[in-house]
């Protein structure tokens, strides 16, 4: 083992170890808990930086731990892993700051931050899994570690949401487990391979491979919230805002989408998947989800539920880009993994600020909010406009590539879906922005938190900084999309490798 083979393990441990220590702390040890959290997040950020540099220079980072005589826990950092790991790490860092501010003074914080760190560990494990079995293990671990966060408040509503969450994710996990085990008996250890590894089995196992693909997509589709497997996501919004922000905008749904990307590109191989004819149904499912999610978002009054349905819709761009199967569309899908994450977390942070500062939970209560909380509302607006796809924001880049990719492949119906979805995005986001900026305030705010009076800021600084940073990033990744270290540049690198170009 050289230092490169330790690297993925260290990255995992940088959130696992603080998480485990935090569990043992008492509620009162606030300073120590905060230090551990921030230290873990900072170390992980630094390690990921080193990793990105290394992967750019062609270094191989791989950790292998034997589990069974013929089974390895394999952590492997390729360009695709780095994309997801980098996103999760940056957003974990920001969300940790946000969560510390948000949960100030509430109970069970040690438990919360402990599980929060474990979730991040599972997400990073998913991103760096080097084979399907390792992926599966972290995928299940993510289910287990997010459940306590969903039910964190312990109310009967939270417990019910938790049960629904479990029913969906455990069943999905079981299906994925079966599919992976079955595929392993056909194709061996399932080491992720750029351009895929199953095409040699196409002759003998055609039916089996199609069935397994369907099972895997359903298993992963639960977390990626593909319709009709999405019902848990809006319910899970009972969780505290940082959880909704990181886990339901980024970690959990992205884990599902990322899994779909892995299965299509690195297990089946995109060309082989096309040949099997399994991508077209996936594209249809994704398109259906995009439209359905937007339509649902249109009728929501609860802000977090609106955002949840918007997530349902937007995450499927990733699956759509994957399923259209052409290099350009792939770029659009993969880059949306990052872009959607940045935009959606901004929106959730802002929604949390509204709720925490003024008690605003509903869209109808947002009149005049732009004057009361201009900074937060500005960040919110950037996120929302990005979601709609206004240039030069992040969402525009994704949609542009998706649309061009569909055109290249001659799938005009996808363009129709994109246009329709953009119209719907505008239809549910613009009224919110209009209310906040242009309508006058109606009566007092629902529940204004007095301890924030006297501060020059509109809300606690720990709640304000993270959305401003992510909003700036939303703008930045759009403006500087052509730079080689932007998400788009990185995704191009991945795409060239996946297609063997």
């Amino acid at each position, binding site marked *: 083992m050289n230092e490169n083979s330790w690297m993925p393990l260290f990255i995992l441990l940088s959130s696992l170890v603080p998480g485990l220590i935090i569990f043992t702390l008492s509620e009162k040890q606030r300073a120590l808990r905060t230090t551990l959290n921030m230290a873990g997040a900072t170390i992980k950020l630094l390690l990921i930086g080193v990793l990105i540099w290394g992967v750019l220079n062609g270094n191989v980072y791989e950790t292998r731990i034997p589990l*069974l005589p013929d089974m390895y826990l394999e952590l492997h950092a390729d360009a695709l892993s780095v994309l997801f790991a980098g996103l999760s790490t940056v957003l974990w860092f920001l969300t940790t700051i946000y969560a510390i501010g948000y949960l100030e003074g509430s109970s069970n914080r040690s438990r919360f931050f402990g599980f929060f760190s474990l979730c991040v560990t599972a997400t990073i494990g998913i991103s760096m899994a080097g084979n399907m079995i390792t992926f599966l293990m972290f995928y299940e*671990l993510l289910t287990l570690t997010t459940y306590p966060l969903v039910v964190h408040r*312990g109310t009967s509503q939270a417990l019910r949401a938790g049960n629904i969450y479990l029913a969906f994710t455990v069943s999905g996990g079981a299906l994925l487990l079966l599919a992976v085990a079955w595929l392993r008996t056909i194709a061996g250890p399932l080491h992720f391979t750029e351009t895929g590894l199953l095409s040699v089995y196409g002759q003998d196992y055609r039916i089996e491979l199609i069935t397994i693909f369907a099972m895997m997509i359903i298993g992963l589709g639960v977390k990626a919230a593909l319709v009709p497997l999405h019902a848990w996501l809006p319910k899970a919004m009972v969780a505290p805002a940082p959880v909704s922000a990181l886990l339901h905008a980024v970690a959990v749904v992205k884990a599902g989408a990322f899994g779909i990307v892995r299965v299509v590109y690195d297990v089946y191989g995109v060309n082989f998947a096309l040949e099997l004819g399994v991508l077209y149904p996936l594209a249809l499912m994704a398109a259906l989800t995009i439209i359905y999610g937007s339509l649902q978002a249109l009728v929501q009054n609860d802000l977090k539920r609106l955002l949840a349905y918007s997530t349902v819709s937007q995450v499927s761009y990733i699956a759509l880009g994957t399923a259209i199967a052409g290099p350009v569309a792939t770029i659009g899908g993969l880059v949306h993994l990052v872009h959607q994450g940045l935009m959606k977390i901004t929106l959730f942070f802002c929604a949390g600020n509204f709720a925490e500062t003024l008690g605003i939970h509903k869209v109808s209560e947002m009149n005049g909010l732009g004057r009361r909380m201009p900074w937060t509302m500005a960040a919110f607006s950037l996120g929302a406009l990005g979601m709609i796809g206004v240039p030069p924001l992040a969402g525009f880049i994704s949609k542009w590539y998706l649309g061009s990719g569909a055109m290249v492949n001659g799938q005009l119906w996808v363009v129709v879906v994109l246009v329709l979805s953009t119209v719907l995005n505008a239809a549910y986001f613009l009224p919110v922005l209009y209310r906040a900026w242009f309508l006058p305030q109606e009566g007092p705010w629902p529940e204004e938190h007095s301890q924030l009076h006297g501060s020059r800021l509109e809300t606690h600084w720990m709640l304000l900084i993270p959305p401003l940073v992510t909003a700036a990033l939303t703008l930045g990744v759009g403006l500087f999309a052509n730079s080689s270290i932007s998400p788009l540049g990185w995704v191009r690198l991945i795409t060239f490798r996946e297609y063997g170009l």
Partner: protein
Amino acid sequence: MSLILTVPWMAWSILLPLGGAVATFLSRRYASRLTLLFGMATAVCVGALGWQLALKGPQRHHIGGWQVPVGIDLYADGLAVLMLAVTALVGLLISFYATAYFPKAGQEETGDQNVASSVYFWPLWLFLWGALNALFLSADLFNIYVTLELLGLSAVALSGLSGKAEALSAAMRYLFVSMIGSLSYLLGVALLYNMYGVLDLGLLASEVRPGPTSQAALALITVGLALKTALFPFHFWLPPAHANAPAPVSALLSALVVKASFYLLLRLWLGVFPTVINTTAVDLLGFLGALAIIWGSIQAFRQRRLKLLVAYSTVAQLGYLFLVFPLVLRGGDFTAWGGSAYLAVSHAFAKASIFLASGIIMHVAGHDRIDELAGIGQRLPVTMFALALAGVSLLGLPPSGGFIAKWMLLNAALITGQWWLVAVIILGGLLAAGYVFRMLAHSFTPATWISFEQPVARRMEWSAFALAAVAIALGLVAEPPLTLLQSSTSFAGPGLREMIP
């Protein structure tokens, strides 16, 4: 060095607990400390035996120097040593827990109802330990009968220890079941002896021929052992017996005692009688195992009392073990029987932990009615954590010993193309999720006006936690125990007779 290799550690690992039983009976004042002392000494013997095994391969010991067929042999291979080691580790942790659970001999005047139990717990438990070790090491049909009876005697006495009416009637029922089981086994042995004139397992394996007598004898032996292992539909005695015993006893019964008779079934079916068994018989056992999984899980979910839920979960988990027979017969090989043995091991740790944790909850709350335990998670975080970790292993989710075991079984079912077993394994996991999360329902509910003020010794909580941690660790370091299993025994296919005593 040479000393370690020549000492008959096998004999000592039986004699020490029996000696300890006498000692603790005579010196009640120091009973708990003596138990720990003798327990640790036994564990050292088992460790030394393991070393012997690693250096010299499977070990054989002629009791009193008499050779077979007149003498009686002890035989230690990987499977036996693994069971001894599990017994030692689980046993020591339960003993440690029990030192705080049972009041000290000096405090008898307090009038606590546990006092009577405490006096007899220690000698009976060491007696049980000796019987278990003897059973795992016996290579002689009749000697096995004796160890079965010793085991039954001590287990029944322990289960009736509390002296409460339900416990006594459960113990009585357990006693009758145990008697029928042993006598049925003995009748089988008598038939075999009349036919072949040998009792040594190795000699019998080389002489046994298919035929009505052999089949009848095997049927009698199997029914006897299946009764003792509580295979569906012979499970009726288990829930009341396990649920009404004091917590350390429940843990011992569910973790270790039921495994002993299963261990014999595994040895006899796969090691001694492979030429006698046929597909109908193995399918019947597999089918009953499948029914046990489904029935046990459903019943577990329906229980209102925590300990009954846990006891029914034992019924379900034991069902998994019986899937080994159809799996091995159709070529499942080590993946099948290794997985089954590993499940027995990880279930031992997980279930012991759960019963100990339930004992703590009962102690603190004064009852174990699940619906009335709101807020218990706030009061007993460590216990709840133990319960959750052990629950993960029961669910068969990674990372846990239960995952590795079920993964192996699932693979064996897929390799041998037995789809109904695949379905049962997956379904069993989903049903387990139902009862495990019911068990954990109150981990997150906020504390209510009902206060759980009863103080609880820290070592009780940490013993339960340590057992759960081992169940998890078995999922991360599976290779050493599996190598131990694999290297020294081979149940695989037709060649397996050579490897058996």
